[in-house]
């Protein structure tokens, strides 16, 4: 096993071998989840706390289910409603939680870097469930697993990531992960939704869907993050849909067997045509959700193994 990290804070620090280790273990959990008895005890006796400082239904449910299937005691804390409103700082919250001796802390936060900060202050394994516009590592891992299963490999693929790159932590984690595994990445979107300096990431940038989708193996659509925009990134949603929304006409430029992905939740008729999203021959969107649970089980299993090993060595108190 080549995964030795204490936390899963992002894709950036991971080596290709570590990524493959997580994906390989995830395959086993896919099988478990499809079986009759969806249970294992690898996290038995461990406490998992899901701390979501930002709204989430899907990711939180996925982490909760992953923890429960592995036998952990899972607690959900919705932080928008709690002490943050009372002026408690993130560090105070972390210290309070730490005193409850959690083993796995799953954190989502609206600010980039907040999960890193928290990880410095607690002595348990921390999983980043999305921080600001920075990273969303488990999403990139589940996307990678989905691609690998659909395409039979995870290298030398042409992969297009389309839409609101600027506000997307999913895009950042995916660019990093797919780049590490030597795929050719194209980013397609209006220039107002491209982050500055993006060309230096070793990607190709397009502002035309038809050109960008030419002969790609994978089409990854992103949600237009209207809640993160304070005005004026695009002229209107209908023009956006016309130019950048994925419909059958634009998809025709991709390879015939190209798959369509979306991290969800979808804005049908804004970034993706409803029929494409539901087309079982092209869309792997439902499979992504399934892979999400398996990948999160694998990540937590691996982190728990490292946690136990480190505690046995006395690295952590």
């Amino acid at each position, binding site marked *: 096993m080549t995964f030795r990290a204490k936390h899963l804070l992002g894709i950036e620090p991971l080596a290709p071998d570590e990524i493959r280790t997580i994906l390989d273990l995830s395959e086993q959990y896919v099988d478990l989840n499809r079986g009759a008895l969806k249970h294992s005890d690898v996290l038995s006796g461990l406490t998992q706390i899901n701390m979501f400082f930002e709204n989430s239904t899907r990711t939180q449910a996925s982490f909760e289910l992953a923890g429960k299937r592995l036998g952990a005691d899972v607690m959900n804390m919705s932080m928008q409603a709690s002490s943050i409103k009372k002026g408690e700082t993130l560090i105070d919250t972390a210290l309070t939680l730490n005193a409850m001796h959690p083993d796995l802390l799953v954190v989502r936060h609206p*600010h*980039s*870097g907040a999960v890193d*900060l928290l990880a410095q202050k607690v002595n348990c394994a921390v999983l980043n469930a999305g921080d600001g516009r*920075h990273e969303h590592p488990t999403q990139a891992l589940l996307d990678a697993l989905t691609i690998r299963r659909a395409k039979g490999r995870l290298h030398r693929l042409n992969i297009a990531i389309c839409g609101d790159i600027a506000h997307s932590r999913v895009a950042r984690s995916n660019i990093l992960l797919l780049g590490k595994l030597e795929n050719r990445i194209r980013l397609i979107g209006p220039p107002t939704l491209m*982050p500055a300096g*993006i060309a230096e*990431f070793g990607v190709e940038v397009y502002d035309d869907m038809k050109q960008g989708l030419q002969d790609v193996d994978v089409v990854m659509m992103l949600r237009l993050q209207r809640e993160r925009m304070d005005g004026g990134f695009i002229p209107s949603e209908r023009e956006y849909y016309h130019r950048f929304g994925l419909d059958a006409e634009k998809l025709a430029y991709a390879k015939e067997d190209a798959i369509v992905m979306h991290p969800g939740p979808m804005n049908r008729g804004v970034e993706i045509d409803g029929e494409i999203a539901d087309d079982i021959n092209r869309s792997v969107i439902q499979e992504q959700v399934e892979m999400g649970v398996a990948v999160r089980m694998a990540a937590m299993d691996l982190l728990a193994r490292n946690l136990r090993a480190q505690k046995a060595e006395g690295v952590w108190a």
Partner: protein
Amino acid sequence: MTDILLTNARLIDPEAGTETPGTVRISGGKIAEISPGPPEGAKQKASATVIDCRGKCLAPGIVDIGVKVCEPGERHKESFKSAGLAAAAGGVTTMVTRPDTLPAIDTPEVLEFVTRRAREASPVRIKPMATLTKAREGREMVEIGFLLDAGAVAFTDGDRVTENTKVLSRAMTYARSLDALVIAHPQEPGLSKGAAVTSGKFASLRGLPAVSPMAERMALDRDMALVEMTGVKYHADQISTARALPALERAKKNGLNVTAGVSIHHLALNELDVGDYRTFFKVKPPLRSEDDRVAMVQAVASGLIDVISSMHTPQDEESKRLPYEEAASGAVALETLLPAALRLVHSGAIALPALWRALSLNPARRLGLDTGRLAVGAPADLVLFDPDAPFVLDRFKLRSKSKNTPFDGARMQGRVLATFVAGTQVFGEL
């Protein structure tokens, strides 16, 4: 008071641009005599205290434009006493203090409080600045005349940009009639709103809100047009991007009364130092690319940028231990200004006398002070330092109440051995 004879020193003269061995005699708070070579050249009075400088550097004390002392309002972050001690230990003999306190220094009454507190508590000189507009709101100009009479040396709203061009042009026109210096922070406010880092690959990788470096040039362009229109004496507090330099150069060539400063952090650090969201590196404007940093160093060496400042900004731990976007900006730097600036000398980018033009001579001249010079008759504000002495910075040993330095754990060179203000030793044991 007996005379002090500083013998066997390496004299750094920023006016002459020289670095020569010699002796300085201090008498009555002023530099009474400078003689070249070994001490025999100086008339030794029997009553003089003789200090052997052992070949170390003796230079005019640093005149630091833009020091934030958090009085009134936030004394727990920094007081005149703690800032004064830090300044003395850092070789800063004049702190030109910022008016962005709580409340802001925008009336003669508040300014008098500052001067009184400063006189009581600080071992180094304090020259206060006042705001340009009331409560730094950018709506109405302050009583520039009264504030000048009360001792304000310049007028600035700090890092808050006067967005309303009409208000700014009137304030500049009025300031011009009183020959007052206006100091501005060139940042186009729309583009820079909410930004925590400079846009580019690093900002995108970290997913942080970013400002284009162009925002600085845009604001400087506007201000240069206003200076041309009003004829005011203008100083840009911090220039930090290469793209702003041509506008500055053009303004100077056209004879506008313009000078510019740069903070020590923009000379010594770049955006990559932020690393994994290290908030002690969050300053305003944000740290720039390495290309920009190198351009700033060259601009100081060529004299295009006139002044190096510490932009000393104390922040307590609570306001820094937050997610990067939410953390407060600013770094303490009174005690690290000199060793950080010496990095430029050690790297061969600039000679000591030229560096001292930016640290003492130019800022003093710009404010109309007679300090900042190593000349007979000038006030004996001096710093004796060993430019080579190595050390590792421990932030908890800083004299500032706030310990928010980006240089914690950094290997630095340059130790202040003694600091004199008006001929009185305020730091060091000799």
